[in-house]
């Protein structure tokens, strides 16, 4: 048991080191650029619109008139207070701008990830279990076809078919504006806006999980312990899910952890296609406006997000596979 805690602690330490490195980069890079850091942080256009008062307050805020140790101190204290700077485009604190968009993105990503993974695993197990039979061939071919679509194209396709032609789903946004809905109606409204973007994400993402699961299942079925399970008198369902399924989760979890950064990028495309008011859409408008503090804030947030999810995956993997607990 002590071993377990120690290995968890060392894992956490690894993540803290990575986080510290990223924060340090975020701090150092603007200050390494030629010219003055304020210029680097806010860009040309922002400075044109800047009044001397604002400039003064910014210099004070960043402690630019003091030594770099004090600057770092000020930066970290700012971060700890949730201060990522000021977005001159939105005329608001970066933190609050991001916080307005983050829940929508999280909703999208978490839903898509859970659904794609669950669906991929179930289809993968069923397909691997029927290896070589028509259902298996059908599933492999179909899902390979779907995962071949670029994400934005899938989004556009769904939008055209179900949004524009059939009119079954709203075309854009996360909620119907100015509808003033409450309770269950609000929930249904959010859901109807979610359907198409989540479906697009799931359809493209599910293929990879499916293939990995299926391949693992195919090789697992040859394992002696599956014979042991059958010899015990396990039902097919128990063999399929309690033994084969449980063991096939391991590579899936690893793969999912690794594909999170990619998923974030995919989500940005989907948010653009569906004008979904998440972090991705926010990032594009920040890029358009060259709102550097906002861009930096979003990038920092995304890296922290990726690190957190990877950390959770590592923990989950240890829970799933007892062999890894002692591998560190």
């Amino acid at each position, binding site marked *: 048991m002590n071993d377990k805690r120690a290995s968890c602690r060392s894992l956490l330490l690894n993540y803290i080191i990575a986080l510290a490195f990223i924060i340090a980069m975020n701090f150092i890079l603007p200050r390494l650029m030629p010219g003055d850091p304020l210029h680097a942080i806010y860009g040309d256009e922002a400075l044109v619109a800047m009044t001397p008062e604002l400039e003064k307050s910014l210099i004070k805020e960043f402690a630019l008139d003091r030594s770099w140790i004090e600057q770092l101190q000020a930066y970290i204290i700012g971060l700890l207070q949730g201060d990522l700077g000021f977005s001159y485009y939105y005329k608001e604190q970066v933190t609050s701008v991001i916080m307005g968009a983050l829940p929508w993105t999280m909703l999208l990503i978490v839903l898509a990830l859970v659904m794609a993974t669950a669906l991929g695993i179930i289809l993968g197990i069923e397909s691997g279990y029927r290896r070589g039979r028509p259902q298996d061939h059908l599933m492999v071919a179909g899902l390979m076809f779907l995962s071949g679509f670029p994400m934005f194209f899938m989004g556009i396709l769904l939008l055209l078919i179900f949004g524009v032609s059939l009119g079954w789903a709203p075309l854009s946004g996360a909620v119907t504006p100015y509808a003033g809905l409450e309770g269950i109606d609000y929930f249904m409204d959010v859901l109807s806006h979610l359907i198409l973007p989540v479906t697009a994400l799931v359809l493209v993402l599910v293929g990879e999980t499916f293939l990995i699961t299926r391949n693992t299942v195919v090789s697992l079925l040859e394992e002696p*312990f599956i*014979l*042991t399970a059958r*010899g015990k*008198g396990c*039902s097919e369902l*128990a063999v399929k899910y309690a033994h084969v399924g449980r063991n096939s989760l391991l590579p899936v979890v690893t793969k999912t952890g690794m594909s999170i950064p990619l998923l974030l990028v995919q989500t940005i495309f989907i948010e653009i296609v569906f004008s979904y008011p998440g972090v991705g859409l926010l990032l594009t408008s920040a890029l358009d406006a060259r709102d550097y503090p906002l861009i930096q804030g979003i990038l920092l947030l995304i890296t922290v997000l990726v690190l957190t999810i990877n950390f959770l995956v590592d923990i989950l993997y240890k829970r799933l596979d*007892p*062999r890894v607990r002692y591998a560190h």
Partner: protein
Amino acid sequence: MMLQIKDLKVSFGKAEILRGINLGLEIGDSISIVGESGAGKTTLGLSIMGLVKGSHSGEVRFRGKDLLTIPEEDLRGLRGKEIAMVFQNVEDALDPVQRAQDQVAEAIRIHQRIGAKGAEAAAKKILMSVGLKGDKARAYPHQLSGGERQRVIIAMALANDPALLILDEPTASLDALTKADILRLFRSVIVGRISLVITHDIALASALTEQMAVLYAGEIVEMGRTDEMLREPRHPYTRGLIRSYPGMTTTKDLQSIPGRMVHGLRGCPFHERCTQRIEICQREMPPLREIGGRQVACHRGGIVPLLDVRDLCKSFDSCDVLRDINLTLYEGETLALVGESGSGKSTLSKLIMGLYEPDSGDVVLEQQKVLKRDISFYSRVQMIFQNPKESVSHRMNVLDAVLEPLVVQKKGTREERLIRAKEVLDHVELPSDDEFLQRYPHQLSGGEVQRVAIARALALGPKLLIADEPTSALDPSVQAKILKLLMGLQDKMGLAMLFVTHDISLARKVSDRMAVMHKGRIVETGATNEVLSNPEHPYTRKLVQCASGEPEKMDDRKMPDREISKATENIEINLGEGIRCRESNF
């Protein structure tokens, strides 16, 4: 019968893995299924479990129900409950992500109405009873040693107290000490059940089971009591298996079975590798028949006795040189005839060859009394002698020497004889180029001349080779080569050998059985390892002691209480005395 297998056939695609297995077992029976890998042993186990994937026919009746036809649902109810199997492969037979006790508890919960808590407690109890103690029950498979994992697997099989327990190579990947522990455990758990032990480990089979069935290419070729089968195998394949198994009591060098197993052969499945096959073996599958308390599937009734010597007596003038000699030599085996000089060994071999006429008694070759020594006799029995330089005429070159028996027996045309001569020279690993063929014995080394002598003996394709001290004139390294050659020929051709020697340590390495001669009588016969490790006759004991270099112990020791055959009771022990003659005739 609790378990009755009738004409069980299993095939995967076109390959027939099991070709009609019949087996009947009651509670308390234990049987081992032995054979090479790929013989179908595991398939047999899996068919009883109803887990075999190929197409099958026949019946596997368990408590009257045919396991091959009952619905999968019912089969699942039996599996793990009434019939349990310990699968081979200790490394991977457990689910890597579940605790040992959970896996055992699962086996219990499938078949019994019991809560999670109850099942866990029961699992712990069973694990305890198979010797997995303390925290180990909560461990994951990778945290357990091979022996501990095997215990978990056994616990899982025993979880529901099955009536039929199938053990598939249960100790294959364990070290000797762990194996001994697990073996002890098996002995206690198989009591009161039907146990079927699938193994290639003959020591395991003899330790665990009372009966044994030898499986070859999907057919049972021999079945009987384990101890009897190991002591006296009847089917050539059984003998081959035992000969290739490195037991602690084996004294003869390991011999392999020539060729490899092929499934789906017409006729007897073993005929391609069998050295005593006859024409019918290639056409018809021999049925499993009861022969002397044993089931043997062989057209020839098992390993055939090649040579029988019955009550042979011989005296020169008034000296009784041989008295009531009885010997049996089986196809493909080596019988060592050991004894001091003058004990009558050479006389016996010359009598068999027909160089002397016996006073009374018979020599029987392949169940026929030998009345005259003609071509058919000499093409079956040949001899090699002690001193090769003397036994190969110095006036003949290699080719003439090897051709001679063919010429004398008027076999084949000139060309055929030449081809045959080159072939046998090849068998004895000599060159067959013209330069070598033209050499004379004095141009060859001792070992080479002996090879030529062996080639000459082989030229007629004999079944029996009488070798009279064939290596005593050679140095040890050449001797080793010649002996290896002879054993190799035995593997290949099924040659039976009567190996006459005074060197008991040499006999120990080359012979399957041993006959000890003393003063014109055979005083002891038996399997070589038994005779040597447990010599019953005082004379044998002396020979063994002398050979082991313990002359100080050579004074007569008290005989422990043991029965010796009556014929030898009165023989006086007097080393070096030789044969006594009847005084009245002097």
